């Protein structure tokens, strides 16, 4: 690799040497100079369209946007001259004039990059006349994503997210000039277009233009209703991110405090989605083995590779983009939906409750889970299996609304039943986690031995690399699985729908070498989900991932099939994996959807 040439510049009087290709913004960061930005986001390509990051360069007639201007030899840069400050203030004032400035009623108030900028530059709302379009209608058509054009600053971060990270292109720039806006195909409502509900646009939006549909008011009502038994299960990635919103550093595990807070809020039972994740692993692991047997022994034309179905954004993506390949999806419901179905059958029975009085809430890192909960087929208990999905942000909001001092809370344990979990369930939250959990169980089911990795840690499937692969040779099979003896099980993991597309295109081309693939819609997996605290970037993703694996390491049981409550539920209720009850309650089917 050739060493990059160095470029010498001066920034605010400091001489600096930077590698060729660096921008003015890179140089400023190196020197700890904070240049304000708005359209810039670490995850995305540089747009250079908000113009807030302009700086003065000696000899230039115009100001230079620092995010998109490459350094040139001898450049002399000034970041806070009166000319620069005046320009920035003017630009912010222009954006204010285009904005619905009712911050008091905005969900993103106090966590809004634009609000912070306007405050920092002390911009007067009355500088310019308002050019906010009258009669802008809120798009609340989607179960998951709420779109409010009146809060849009047209930075196009959502557009770039949808195009670059997810390659979905549900959101795009339409029209020009004063009519320019972010919209959908033919201006259709969000629920009619290819939107996968992943919510990545939400966590990349600097303002309140894109937010999740919020349901916490309904939950407060239910908690206050004496006839209702309100339960909540929380996903693994919530406990490693919730603290960020409530005063803890990024990457802090707040499992125990979260449970205490939810009990204080008044949930009758605080349960663990990890239990359902373990259930998913047992069902999905057996489904994989069944598919392999049908392919190898029965010589049936069965769809392989099998692909995970835990991520509802991914599921909707494949329904839109590759509807001819739905048979590759595992028929297993996601942990959220398995939990819901069990809550209103098994749990109701054990607790002696009438399922119609149970309000089942899912605390999720996810926007798509809201849509998933409302899919018409998700009523296998005879009721709506999951009544509401809340994001990590909404849970934090409820904790704040309850006046709880989260920092000072004692730890509590999850309630029972359906509150016991394993390390395998926990790692569902990180990309590669479902695969690792499945392999820990499948390998042992087939061979009776631990998966051949030190401390059960299957390191090749971990991390933020775009597509990960692993091969495991199966040796020493039990008699009933002798057909797998010597088979090299090939697996792959993709996170982010851009990578999912690469995996799918291999399948379409008939060139997929894999038996089993894990796909998560969001970059980094659930820890980077569209329902997670804002901001999210790769540094934050990695810290949340580290917290997930630390949580796994600390668990006494780290294999799904060894979860005592899982053993119990099969003994008392489900009888066997892939059995009749499982088929009714834990498995589902998929729908072909439109391509726009």
């Amino acid at each position, binding site marked *: 690799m050739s060493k990059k040439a160095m470029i010498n510049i001066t920034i605010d009087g400091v001489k600096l040497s930077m590698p060729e290709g660096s921008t003015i913004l890179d140089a400023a960061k190196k020197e700890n100079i904070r240049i304000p930005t708005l359209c810039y986001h670490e995850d995305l390509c540089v747009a250079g369209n908000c113009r807030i990051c302009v700086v003065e360069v000696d000899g230039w007639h115009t100001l230079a946007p620092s995010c998109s201007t490459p350094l040139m030899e001898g450049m002399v840069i000034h970041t806070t001259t009166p000319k620069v400050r005046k*320009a920035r203030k003017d630009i912010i004032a222009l954006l204010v004039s285009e904005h619905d400035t009712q911050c008091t009623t905005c969900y993103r108030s106090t966590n809004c990059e634009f609000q912070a900028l306007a405050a920092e530059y002390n911009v007067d709302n009355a500088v310019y006349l308002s050019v906010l379009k009258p009669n802008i209608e809120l798009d609340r058509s989607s179960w998951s994503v709420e779109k409010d054009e009146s809060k849009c600053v047209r930075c196009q971060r959502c557009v770039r997210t949808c195009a670059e990270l997810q390659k979905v292109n549900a959101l795009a720039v339409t029209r020009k000039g004063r009519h320019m806006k972010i919209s959908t195909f033919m201006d259709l409502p969000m629920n009619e277009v290819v939107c996968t509900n992943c919510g990545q646009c939400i966590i990349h939006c600097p303002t309140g233009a894109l937010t999740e549909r919020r349901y916490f008011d309904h939950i407060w009502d239910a908690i206050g209703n004496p006839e209702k038994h309100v339960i909540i299960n929380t996903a693994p990635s919530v406990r490693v991110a919730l603290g960020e919103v409530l005063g803890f550093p990024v990457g802090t595990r707040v499992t125990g405090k979260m449970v205490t807070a939810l009990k204080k809020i008044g949930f009758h039972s605080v349960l663990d989605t990890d239990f359902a994740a373990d259930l998913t692993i047992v069902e999905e692991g057996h489904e994989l083995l069944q598919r392999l047997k049908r392919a190898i022994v029965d010589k049936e034309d069965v769809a392989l590779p099998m692909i995970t179905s835990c991520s509802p954004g991914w599921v909707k993506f494949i329904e839109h983009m590759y509807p001819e390949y739905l048979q590759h999806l595992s028929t297993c419901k996601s942990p959220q939906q398995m939990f819901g179905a069990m809550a209103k059958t098994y749990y109701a029975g054990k607790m002696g409750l009438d399922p119609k009085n149970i309000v089942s809430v899912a605390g999720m890192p996810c926007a798509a889970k809201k849509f998933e909960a409302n899919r018409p087929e998700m009523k296998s208990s005879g009721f709506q299996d999951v009544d509401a999905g809340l994001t990590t942000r909404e849970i934090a909001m409820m904790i704040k609304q309850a006046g709880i001092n989260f920092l000072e809370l004692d730890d509590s344990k999850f309630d029972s039943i359906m509150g016991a979990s394993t390390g395998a369930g926990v790692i569902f939250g990180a990309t590669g986690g479902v695969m690792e959990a499945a392999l820990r169980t499948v390998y042992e089911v087939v061979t009776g031995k631990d998966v051949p990795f030190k401390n059960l840690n299957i390191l090749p499937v971990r991390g933020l690399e775009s597509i990960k692969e692993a091969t495991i040779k199966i040796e020493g099979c039990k008699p009933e699985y002798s057909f797998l003896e010597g088979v090299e099980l090939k697996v792959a993991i993709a996170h982010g729908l851009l990578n999912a597309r690469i995996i799918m295109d291999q399948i379409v081309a008939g060139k997929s070498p894999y038996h089993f693939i894990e796909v998560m819609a969001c970059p980094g997996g659930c820890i980077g989900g569209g329902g997670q605290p804002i901001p999210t970037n790769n540094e934050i993703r990695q810290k949340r991932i580290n917290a997930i694996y630390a949580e796994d390491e600390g668990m006494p049981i780290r294999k799904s099939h060894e979860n005592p409550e899982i053993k119990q539920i099969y003994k008392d209720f489900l009888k066997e994996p892939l059995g009749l009850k499982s088929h009714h309650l834990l498995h589902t089917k998929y729908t072909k959807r439109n391509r726009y």
Partner: protein
Amino acid sequence: METKKIKRVDFIFSQDFKVSEVLFNTFKKTRDEILQEIIDSDLKGRGGAGFPTGLKWKAAKEDKITEKYIICNADEGEPGTFKDRAILEEASQKVFGGMAICAKVIGAKKGWIYLRGEYKFLIPHLRKEMAIFHDMLHNELGFDFTIDIFTGSGAYVCGEETALLQSMEGKRGEPRNKPPYPTNIGLYNKPTVVNNVETLVLSMMVVKIGAEEFKKLGIQDARGGKLFSVSGDTPKSGIHELEFGMLLSDFVEEFGDGDTKAVQVGGASGFCVPRKKFDTTTIGYKGKLKGTSLPTGGSMMLFNSSRSMYNVLHNYLEFFAEESCGQCTPCRVGTQQLLKGIEAIKKGEKSHEYLEALLSLSETMKLTSKCGLGQSVANSFSSIVENFREEMIY
């Protein structure tokens, strides 16, 4: 102040030479020799911005990537400009010839004419002429270069060269960040020269008569002749090929109707010159000249005393508020604010002091907009507001 009397030039539509002969003679020279001739001639882009053509070609020539393109920018959209259409109608062989010369210099095998959507009716004619040209180029001169036509879809901003490239790539017509410039990263990331129709014709002129002869026309920083699209309150509206460097007062004497109160030089994105400054304004590129020298893509709009300059400015601002691509803040919102602002002042909803805030805003737009569109709104805005202030208020 160096100026030239109004002098007509006859090159662009002249029939007294054959394109094939010029190319034949030119192709005998080396690429460096041809390039040097263009650089020496001081030829500047005739689209309006006036970037030195030779330097543009040089940058593309020196790029190490071997696949390169030449694009003829025929997205003539500046209000009051209609010269490129006439060139394509009557002198398309010279346009193709200019493209071939550029292709020779930079090493391109492929070129396009980016044709304004509204000029679609020219396609049959251009195709016919192109077939003749290709036949000559390939069979008589044995030069491997082919031209095609790409039709725009009607957005003004696509005349900006990087928006034009985006549009050709099938994307939204939005200007790119610069640097990098198209001469290094252009169409499909290949080094690309984008030249105005007239520039290409003039590059033929340079190689035909030589840089020294070419430089005898015009003044210091504005060499050669220029096609002017004359419109408005004039008895001689139409296209006129004139030598660069004339005084605006001479121009008005020749083309005015005797009652000219202002001339808009360079279209909506150009400057408005009031009567009292006709004597001190020359037409050419800004350079070492003392006094005011105004560049123009060729649009010269004359207004007589029956015209309201408020209406003129309102019209331009309406145009910009519609034709901004909308991506960058200063241009998208700034154009709306200027428009809404002068309306409010006229109606008395804002005091006349608000004009100062708007002038200051137009300066911010000039400093911070992403492309020439937003940067040049201040030209017409400040020159009209400053010179016709009372018309804005009363």
